C-alpha cells in the first residue's frame, strides 16, 4: 500500500475514536512535556552555576605553598614560607601559557573612617590581579606597578566596605581611611559583584599594592599564594604544567620529587559544581522518562485493543490481498502517528511549562534544541517499540479466522 493511503487509513481510524486517541496521546504528551521541562530546569540551573563560578574569573590558577612542618609538627596548608616574589617573576618570564601572574598576601585589617570602623580582608596584589579575577572599577583608578615598587599607601575597596565606612550611595574616591592605624588613600571602588557560588561576599574586600601590604601591614618577606591566568581556557593544563616545572626548578626539586606547592584551577571547582547539577538533571530526566515509558505502554495497550476490535477489518483487508507486512505497516503507522503527534504537542507544552516556571518561579530555565530533538526521537522510538507487538499480532492473523471473528 502506498504511504499516502497508509497515512489516510491511519488518520481515519484515529479520527474514528477521537477521545481514545487523545487519551492515549496524553500519556506521551505528559511524558514528553515533563522531559522537556525537567531538562530545561536542569540545564538552566547548570548554566546559572557556571555563570556564578565564572564571576570568580575564568582561566584562573591558584598556586599555594604546601603545609610547613617544624620538628615533625605539620602546620596548616599554605603556611610554608618558601614562596617568594622571585617565583612570580620566574613564572611570568618563563611560562608562555600564563597570561598574568600576581603574588597574593592576605590579612585581616581594622578599617577606620572617622567614627566608623569595619573589619575585613586586605589583599596585597599586583594590579593585574584585576585582569585575572575579571574585576572592574566603578569609579577611580587602579594602583600601578610603580605604586607597588614604592609601597605607596593606596587602596581599592569594595562596595560593602564603602557602605560600612561611608554609608550607601557615596563615592569616597580620594578619601583617606586607616587600615590598622596606617592611613591609606582610596583610589578606586570595585564594581558590585555580589556573592560567589560559595556564599562569600565579593564586595567585602580591600585591595592594596602587594609590597604595601606585605611590608607595611604584615611585615613578612614571603608570599602566601599566587594567582595566575592561562591565555585561554584550553591552555589551563599547559599553564599548570609549566608552572610546576618552573617552580620545581626554582625550589631545587628533581622531576621525580613531590612539589612543595599545589595548583588549583577554576575548572576543578566548576567541574565539581556542574557535576552536582548534572546529577540533578539526570535524576529529573529519568523520572520524566518513566512517565514517557508509561505513555508507551498506554499506546501498546490501546493498539492491542484496536487490533482485537478490528480483527474483522484485518480479515477484509487480507481477503482483498493485503499481505502481512501491509497490515503490520498500517498498525505501526497508527502507533507512530499517536506518538509523534503526542510528541509534538508534548514539546509545545513542555516549552510553555518551562516558560511558565521561568516567569512565575523565576527559576533559571534553558531549553536546548538537543533536548527537543531527543524527546521527539524518543517518543517516536516508543511508538515503534510499543506498536510493534500489536502490529505483529495483527499481521500474523489467519485471514479466514479474522473474517469469522465476531
Amino acid at each position, binding site marked *: *500500500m*502506498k504511504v*499516502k*493511503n497508509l497515512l489516510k487509513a491511519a488518520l*481515519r481510524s484515529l479520527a*474514528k475514536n477521537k477521545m481514545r486517541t487523545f487519551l492515549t496521546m496524553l500519556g506521551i504528551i505528559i511524558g514528553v512535556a515533563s522531559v522537556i521541562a525537567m531538562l530545561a530546569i536542569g540545564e538552566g540551573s547548570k548554566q546559572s552555576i557556571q555563570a556564578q563560578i565564572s564571576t570568580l574569573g575564568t582561566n584562573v590558577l591558584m598556586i599555594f605553598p604546601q603545609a610547613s612542618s617544624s620538628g615533625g609538627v605539620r602546620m596548616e596548608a599554605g603556611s610554608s614560607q618558601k614562596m617568594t616574589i622571585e617565583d612570580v617573576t620566574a613564572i611570568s618570564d618563563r611560562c608562555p601559557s600564563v597570561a598574568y601572574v600576581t603574588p597574593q598576601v592576605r590579612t585581616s585589617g581594622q578599617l577606620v573612617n572617622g567614627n566608623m570602623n569595619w573589619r575585613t580582608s586586605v589583599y596585597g596584589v599586583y594590579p593585574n590581579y584585576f585582569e585575572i579575577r575579571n574585576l572592574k572599577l566603578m569609579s577611580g583608578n587602579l594602583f600601578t606597578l610603580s605604586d607597588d615598587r614604592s609601597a605607596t599607601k593606596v587602596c581599592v575597596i569594595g562596595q560593602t566596605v564603602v557602605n560600612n565606612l561611608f554609608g550607601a550611595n557615596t563615592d569616597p574616591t580620594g578619601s583617606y581611611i586607616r587600615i590598622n592605624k596606617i592611613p591609606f588613600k582610596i583610589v578606586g571602588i570595585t564594581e558590585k559583584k555580589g556573592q560567589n557560588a560559595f556564599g562569600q561576599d565579593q564586595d567585602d574586600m580591600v585591595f592594596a599594592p602587594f609590597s604595601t601590604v606585605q611590608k607595611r601591614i604584615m611585615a613578612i618577606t614571603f608570599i602566601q599564594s599566587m594567582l595566575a591566568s592561562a591565555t585561554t581556557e584550553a591552555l589551563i593544563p599547559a599553564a599548570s604544567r609549566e608552572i610546576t616545572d618552573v617552580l620545581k626548578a626554582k625550589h631545587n626539586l628533581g622531576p621525580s620529587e613531590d612539589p612543595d606547592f599545589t595548583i588549583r584551577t577554576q575548572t576543578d571547582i566548576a567541574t565539581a559544581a556542574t557535576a552536582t547539577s548534572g546529577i540533578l538533571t539526570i535524576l529529573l530526566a529519568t523520572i520524566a522518562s518513566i512517565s514517557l515509558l508509561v505513555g508507551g505502554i498506554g499506546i501498546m495497550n490501546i493498539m492491542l485493543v484496536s487490533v482485537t476490535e478490528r480483527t*474483522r*477489518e484485518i*480479515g*477484509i*483487508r*487480507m*481477503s*482483498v*490481498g*493485503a*499481505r*502481512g*507486512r*501491509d497490515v503490520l505497516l498500517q498498525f505501526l503507522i497508527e502507533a507512530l502517528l499517536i506518538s509523534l503527534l503526542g510528541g509534538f504537542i508534548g514539546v509545545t507544552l513542555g516549552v510553555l511549562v518551562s516558560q511558565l516556571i521561568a516567569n512565575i518561579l523565576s527559576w533559571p530555565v534553558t531549553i536546548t534544541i538537543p533536548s527537543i530533538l531527543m524527546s521527539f526521537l524518543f517518543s517516536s522510538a516508543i511508538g515503534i517499540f510499543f506498536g510493534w507487538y500489536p502490529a505483529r499480532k495483527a499481521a500474523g492473523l489467519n*485471514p*479466514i479466522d479474522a*473474517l469469522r471473528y465476531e
Partner: protein
Amino acid sequence: MHRKCKGVGQAAGEDIKMDTTIVSVKSLVKTYKMGDVEVHALRGVNVDIMKDDFVAIMGKSGSGKSTFMNILGCLDIPTRGKYYLDGVDVSSLSRDELANLRNRKIGFVFQSFNLLSRTSALENVELPLMYNKKISSHEMHERSMKALEAVGLADRAHHFPNQLSGGEQQRVAIARSLVNDPVVILADEPTGNLDTRTSLEVMAIFQKLNQKGITVVIVTHEPDIAAFTKQNITFRDGRIIKAIAVDKPRNAMNELASMPAVTDEEDEL
C-alpha cells in the same frame, strides 16, 4: 471420483484446452483439528471449472461447501491435494504469494458484505487496488468508478455503508470483487442476507458479469438461486455427490421486470 464440470457453451468439449480451465482441483482434502477430534471437511474433491462458467455450489451446512470456497479463494490452504488457479499451483505458495493471488486473480463476495464501515462505497471498491503498487491513484479512481457503474451504484459512490440498503451494500461488495479484473469471482451465499427482490438484483448482476466473460462461482443452499446459474455442484459430507448442467438457466433481469414495482422507501428497508 473425478467429475468434469463443463460450461454449457463448451458442452461439446471432449478435448478441453488447458488455458480455458480457470480452476482445477484434484483430490482435495481438508481436515480440521478441533481439540482431539479430527473434522474431515473435504474428503477428496475433484473439480474443473472452465472460463465463462457460472457455477452454483450447493449442499447442507456442514457439507464442506464453505471450506471448499475458502480454499478456492486462497483464504485457506488444503491439507492434501492440488489446486491450480489459472494454471498456478496454489498449494505450494507462501502467505504473501497467496495474498498477491487474492489481490490480482480473485474477487470475493461474502454473505455479510464485509464492507469497511465509515469508509465510502468508492473507497471500499478501491481497497483491492490500494494493495497493488502498480496502479496509480488516478487509475484506481477510474477503475473503481467503472466497477460501481457496472453494479449501477455510480450515484452512491460517496455514501457510507450505513447509508446503503443491504442490496446496495452487496452490490458495492460485488463492485469491489470485480475491480481488479479477477479471473474468477467467488461468492459465499451472496443472497443469504437479502430479500427476494434484492436477491434477484444481485443475481442479475452476476448474470450480466458472466455474460461479459467473467467466471463466477457462488455457494448457495437455495435451489431458486442455483437455478440462475449454468452448473450446479452438490456437496455432501465433504464429497461431490452431484454435478449437473442447468437446462435452462432462469433470467434474473426478466424476472425483475415482471415483479410488481416497489417504491423507493420500501426498497430502502
